[in-house]
């Protein structure tokens, strides 16, 4: 499809490592097919850079199906770009036009330090999870699965929350770099299910404490997180977390 593709001007954040200050570089890319995915467009750029003897642009990705949560680009100031409920890897170039300038940056948050170029360290999410994002059950012989009845509606709502892919777009989109949507998704999933009830209070307190310790900002209810979330996680989960948190502070010993 030579000659029929788009011409693009790419303004990409380059940063050698965590210590480097970093800067934008401008690249011109031509003949971009509208059928390419955004990451395939970057693959093409990288192949050209290698030919020119320059180091390719580093960016995280793995599944390229919108489910692993690895890809993480700020595209023209929007986490994962312009499409609703769409990860960067599922964004296609047909969404852009010939002659466009596209600004590509990493997630920006204190709790997500840059490793290189567009790659950040999201280990803080794992640390939050290790403080309570689970049901304390060992491998063994739990009761038959159907002895726990879960009303379909609760199961569906738990699934809505569990769909979080842990990409961090919510943090990147929030002006305070709050991780509350991420934390609330896990807290909600487990507090909606009977299996999660026994540890409900402790879980929310511990996870929120770790979130604060990691340096995430606080939530001021702007809902930018929900708008950016590729998995459609609703801010109603934040409301549920807040209720659980208040209740835990008031009712449980841990909160005293």
């Amino acid at each position, binding site marked *: 499809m030579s000659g029929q593709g788009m011409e693009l001007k790419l303004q990409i954040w380059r940063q050698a490592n965590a210590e480097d200050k970093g800067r934008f570089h401008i690249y011109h890319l031509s003949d971009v097919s509208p059928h390419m995915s955004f990451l395939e467009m970057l693959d*093409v750029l990288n192949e050209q850079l290698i030919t020119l*003897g320059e*180091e390719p642009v580093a960016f995280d990705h*793995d599944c390229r199906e919108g489910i*692993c949560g690895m890809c993480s680009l700020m595209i023209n100031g929007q986490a994962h770009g312009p499409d609703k409920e769409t990860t960067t890897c599922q964004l296609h170039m047909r969404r852009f036009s010939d002659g466009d300038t596209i600004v590509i940056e990493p997630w920006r948050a204190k709790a997500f330090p840059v490793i290189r170029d567009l790659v950040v360290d999201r280990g803080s999410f794992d640390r939050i*999870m290790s403080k309570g994002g689970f049901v*304390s059950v060992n491998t063994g012989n739990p009761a038959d699965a159907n002895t726990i*009845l*879960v009303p*379909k509606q609760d199961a569906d709502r738990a699934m809505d929350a569990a769909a979080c892919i842990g990409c961090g777009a919510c943090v990147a989109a929030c002006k305070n770099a709050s991780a509350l949507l991420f934390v609330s998704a896990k807290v909600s999933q487990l507090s909606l299910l009977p299996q999660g009830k026994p540890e409900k209070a402790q879980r929310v307190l511990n996870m929120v404490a770790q979130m604060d310790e990691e340096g995430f900002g606080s939530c001021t209810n702007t809902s930018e997180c929900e708008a950016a979330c590729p998995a459609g996680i609703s801010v109603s989960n934040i409301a549920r977390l807040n209720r659980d948190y208040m209740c835990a502070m008031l009712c449980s010993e841990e909160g005293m």
Partner: protein
Amino acid sequence: MVQVAEATLDGRIPDGPIEQKWDNRKSELKLVSPNNKRKYEVIVVGTGLAGASAAASLAELGYNVKAFCFQDSPRRAHSIAAQGGINAAKNYPNDGDSIWRLFYDTVKGGDYRAREANVYRLSQVSGSIIDQCVAQGVPFAREYGGLLANRTFGGAQVSRTFYARGQTGQQLLLGAYSALMRQVGSGKVKMYPRQEMVDLIKVDGVARGIVTRDLTNGKFETHTAHAVVLCTGGYGNVFYLSTNAKGCNVTAAWRCHKRGALFANPCYTQIHPTCIPVSGDYQSKLTLMSESLRNDGRVWVPKAEGDARRAADIPEGERDYYLERRYPAFGNMVPRDVASRAAKERCDAGFGVGATQQAVFLDFKHAIARDGEATIRAKYGNLFHMYHKITDEDPYQVPMRIYPAVHYTMGGLWVDYNLQSNVPGLFVLGEANFSDHGANRLGASALMQGLADGYFVIPYTVGDHMARHGQEKVSNDHPEVRASLEEAQGRVSKILGVAGFRSVDSIHRELGQIMWNKVGMSRTAGGLKSAAEDIQALREVFWNDVKVMGTGESFNQNLEHAGRVADFLEFAELFAIDALHREESCGGHFRDEHQTDDNEARRDDENFCYAAGWEFQGVGNEPVLHKEPLDFNEVPLTTRSYK
């Protein structure tokens, strides 16, 4: 001629009737007392379903675990992408399922090339997996009454598949990941993300550790332990284009192979029938459309060759629902290998659809008319959305176009019944081993196997190895540890030293072309021989002409990829050798020379009813074949039929 080892391989299958084998083995296994467990260290490489479940379960028992993955978090392992579901012989729908039937279906689906005893154990523990996952809070789909829901998958006539929308793998992995993170929180597991295992450390013939490279800064480290549990997934990316995540690789398994672990049945590859077709030469991966879609979608092509009309303009009478026509008993639900070959047959014969004519239709028109769009949306919404995103076509309005793509690898490191490789102390779990799916895997069985291995098998069998080998530690200064480290470092320097003109990606793509064209869905002796030559030549190109940017001391994805491609280039040759030596067709291995008059696979049970374990003899040298004869005492060998 292939060099064949004299002694046969012993799978160490326990004695007794099939129903009691696993219990018998458990009672024979030595135990480590609770107080002693903390004196042992276990390394788990890979934190997908197999690795995360193993690491969590071992830590719960009291072992000290170090777990490694190359992604930035264990939650991102490729298991996350599994869509359709997980099998279990619960018989909740009361439609006649049983442990026996799941066992039977899996052995038959694997075209009689799996080890019966392993498959039986898999079926036996399948129910406990669902119990475990539900206890963890995995939000499986439910009926209005609050009970778990089931659906049907290919190769089965009962509904035994549990699912969480089209994101079953995600939810199961997040369950295992949460169990793992709980142990990380408690300090029993130390998690090492963004680390690549680049070698196995053996001391006195026993696996005692691994060499890793920190992908963020290139630093090498050695980690020693009392056992190494490898859960590093499949090698489908040897084809470049596959449904696997971009990082999936053969590196860890291949490095173990080069240290003496046998590689079994590398040629058994699953080509999945329902994937989005290739659209351009920039394409970086292929996307699966879950097999569960075949429950409601009907596969067809036009009856007239070269018919280029839009689907909507082709009247019902001019459509060929070829799966329903050829296989009336199973229809659209035939196993994957059968469905893939049937699609290729139609396209090769000139009946393919779409711009490239390398596609068939998967049509939901009837299902939508029958059940309504809302029902279809509830079942498959995320898949339809994904299809729409990628192709810019709305599958609620026009049929999907699908074509087969490389999806899963049944081959892997050889393991015995205890999941231990022939290298003592090296255990292999999940897609990385070869044991349970024979020559073809049934849908929804990989998730089941990964979790069975990790939750319910390894916690028993690792202990036995520890109890027999004692608590002695290996120091990082041990000469064999140093030697492995230096070798691994040397390999990186060598790659960086080539400084040629070809990009890593272009070489990987070329390898993929060779594999797809000559070692793909239909294979011939001539094609396989020429593939082996092409691969050798391409390996030369790599080592003389590859161009890797950057240094070894920084975050360098180009170098990461180069290391993986270097291993694929060695491994691919073994793949072709295995396919060439197996003069029969079975499951995903289809040799054009060996087919029946109606184009079905023709097995040769007399000569090939064995698992082929290959022993490394040096790059480019003929490997030695070790045969593990397979006995079918429970499910008598018969020709598979889905008609």
